[in-house]
């Protein structure tokens, strides 16, 4: 049973560039959430996708956008990169249609983004 897969594992970009991160959810999961984890901090919620639509969004600027595909995989796009966007980006999948008994998120190993 495949877990959550993220790509790439590491990425170095220049300030002002754009980046796309990818996530494949755990088999059977239908919802994907993205989190940003700065060094030494807890993860911060960016947004969540369900049924190919953004369902919830955290306090992040419009430079952060996403997409969910029919196979439930997801992309996180960040435009006009800033030095402060350097962080570990975590993808988490869950099963919304599973109800209370299936509450919980499964995380990937993340993408380490460095902006120089």
């Amino acid at each position, binding site marked *: 049973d495949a877990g959550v897969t993220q790509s790439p594992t590491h990425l170095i970009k220049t300030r002002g560039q754009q980046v796309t991160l990818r996530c494949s959810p755990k088999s059977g999961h239908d919802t994907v*959430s993205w*989190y940003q984890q700065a060094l*030494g*901090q*807890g*993860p*911060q*919620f960016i947004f*969540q996708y*369900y049924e190919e639509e953004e*369902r*919830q969004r*955290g306090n992040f600027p419009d430079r952060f956008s996403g997409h969910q595909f029919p196979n439930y995989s997801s992309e996180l796009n960040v435009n006009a990169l800033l030095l402060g966007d350097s962080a*570990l980006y*975590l993808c*988490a999948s*869950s099963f*919304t249609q599973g*109800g*209370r008994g299936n*509450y*919980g*998120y*499964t*995380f*990937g*190993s*993340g993408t*380490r983004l460095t902006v120089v």
Partner: protein
Amino acid sequence: AQTVTQSQPEMSVQEAETVTLSCTYDTSESDYYLFWYKQPPSRQMILVIRQEAYKQQNATENRFSVNFQKAAKSFSLKISDSQLGDAAMYFCAYAMNYGGSQGNLIFGKGTKLSVKP
């Protein structure tokens, strides 16, 4: 707004001993979930234990158990018989129940646990 506070940036325990990690949270909601996640150097967040707020019984998972005090908004994690593999960052997290759907996770800043042989 909901918040999660972990007041212990670092903790240390001797192998085979017991350690308790503290977590408090603030919410005005009554239907929510609390979690403890472990993050080793491999970076992947691993679910340790989950507690449903409407269940009074404390959750347990093998050597891991919680002390859930809903009125005090406290959610501590006890690790018994600590093992070297337990060394990691531990994050306490909260998620609200949105009418049948789980809300996003709100994390504390984490506690770094070291296990001494």
